[in-house]
């Protein structure tokens, strides 16, 4: 559920950025995206997505150059690219978290089933000894 809310937040972020907006607005968007990139770095699972993160940070770096040069059109394209990349990384991080949870749950299930089998066998052995 939290993951869905997170993904929706990214979508809203996506929707709220005004492309083709004035330079100041694009600068603000860039700062938001940079903050998001920093947030990604704190996630332990980001190690699996280093190439994607590099692509994002390169894109943000290029955007800063465009802001400096006041190249609005390339800036807009770069921000769009960054935004799509952010949404992708976010989805991938959620996927990794879901994978870890599924694996942990499957591990617990396997252990529980093994314990159940073992206890069932113990009960059977004891029942055979004492008779039914």
């Amino acid at each position: 559920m939290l993951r869905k809310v997170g993904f929706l937040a990214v979508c809203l972020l996506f929707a709220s950025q005004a492309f083709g907006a004035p330079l100041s607005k694009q600068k603000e968007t860039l700062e938001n995206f940079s903050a998001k990139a920093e947030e990604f770095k704190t996630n332990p699972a980001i190690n699996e997505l280093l190439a994607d993160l590099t692509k994002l940070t390169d894109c943000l770096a290029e955007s800063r150059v465009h802001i400096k040069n006041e190249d609005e059109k390339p800036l807009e394209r770069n921000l769009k690219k960054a935004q799509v990349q952010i949404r992708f990384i976010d989805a991938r991080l959620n996927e990794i978290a879901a994978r870890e949870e599924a694996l942990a749950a499957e591990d617990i299930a396997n252990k529980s089933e093994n314990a159940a089998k073992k206890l069932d066998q113990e009960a059977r052995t004891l029942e055979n000894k004492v008779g039914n």
Partner: protein
Amino acid sequence: MSLLKFTPALIASALMIACGSNPKPAELQDFEAKRVGEYAPKIAENYPALQKEFDGYYKEALKAHDDDNKNMTLYFTDLADTTFRTAVSLLNQKDFQARKASAEERTNQAGVVLEKAGQRKEFASLKGQVAEVKVKDAELAILKAKSINAAEYAPEQLAQAEATFEKAKAAFAAGDTAEAQKIAETAIAQADVALKTAQPAYDKQAKINAVDAQYKKIMADAARIPSVTSRIEQRGLFISMRDLFQGQKTTVRGDKMVAIMEMAKIINNYPDFKILIEGHTDNKGKAAKLMEISENRAQTVASTLGKEGVAVARISTAGKGGTEPIDDNSKKAGREKNQRVEIIFLRPAD
């Protein structure tokens, strides 16, 4: 397989080259393969908005390619590909969530099995304890039979119970508790048979022992009276009093009254016994006369005891004359011994 998948793209590229048109970049060709690949139907079903979005980028990429704008072609291809991969990632998330839910369900089911198996194990363990208790009960039943001397009064039955008990113990030690319980129950029944077989003989002997114990106390009390001897026979306790009468007289010598009074006290202390008083003489004289004398002497003693508080109903008398000597009548000392009154504490009937 992959060669077959890319064959149309390769043919298209070859045709375009042959026709002199600009070939699509590899990135765009890769994406085109993906967007009609295995994920396409699932994305269309689950994420139509994302599908619409990457299709829009794809169209822009084609348009840029048609315009021979390589940078914009790659730009839109990248957007399309990243959006496509986002959709794939969301599909994977769903799969993982389903796997998690399935695993949690398996855990729940295993929990139910665990709980039931735990209960079954506990119940079986209790049944095992019941078997242990049965084996101990068998041991107790055997001890109970032994306590009434079944080894003497019911040796065969006791031996059978003990042998069965040993088998029950062995089965329990081997972990076969069901068999142990069954055998132990047989041992209990056999020990019970031994007990019931031994009980009457034991009770009889116990009664005899109790009477003998009282006889010993009476003997100790009587030993304090002069000229009195005592012995235990099958009929009962015999207390023999001598020198009560002078010559062939039937009245008690004055100095011997005290002895009879002492005897009366002892008899009164043991009110459960019937008392038989027998008079005896030596063999000097006619048998009929001796019989009469002995009868009179017994009655005299009985009468004196009655006066000393002994219940008349307890007392019976008999004269034996000289028919039951206890010593040699040819000698004076023997004849003196044979002149006697015997007070018999009769053994109670069964």
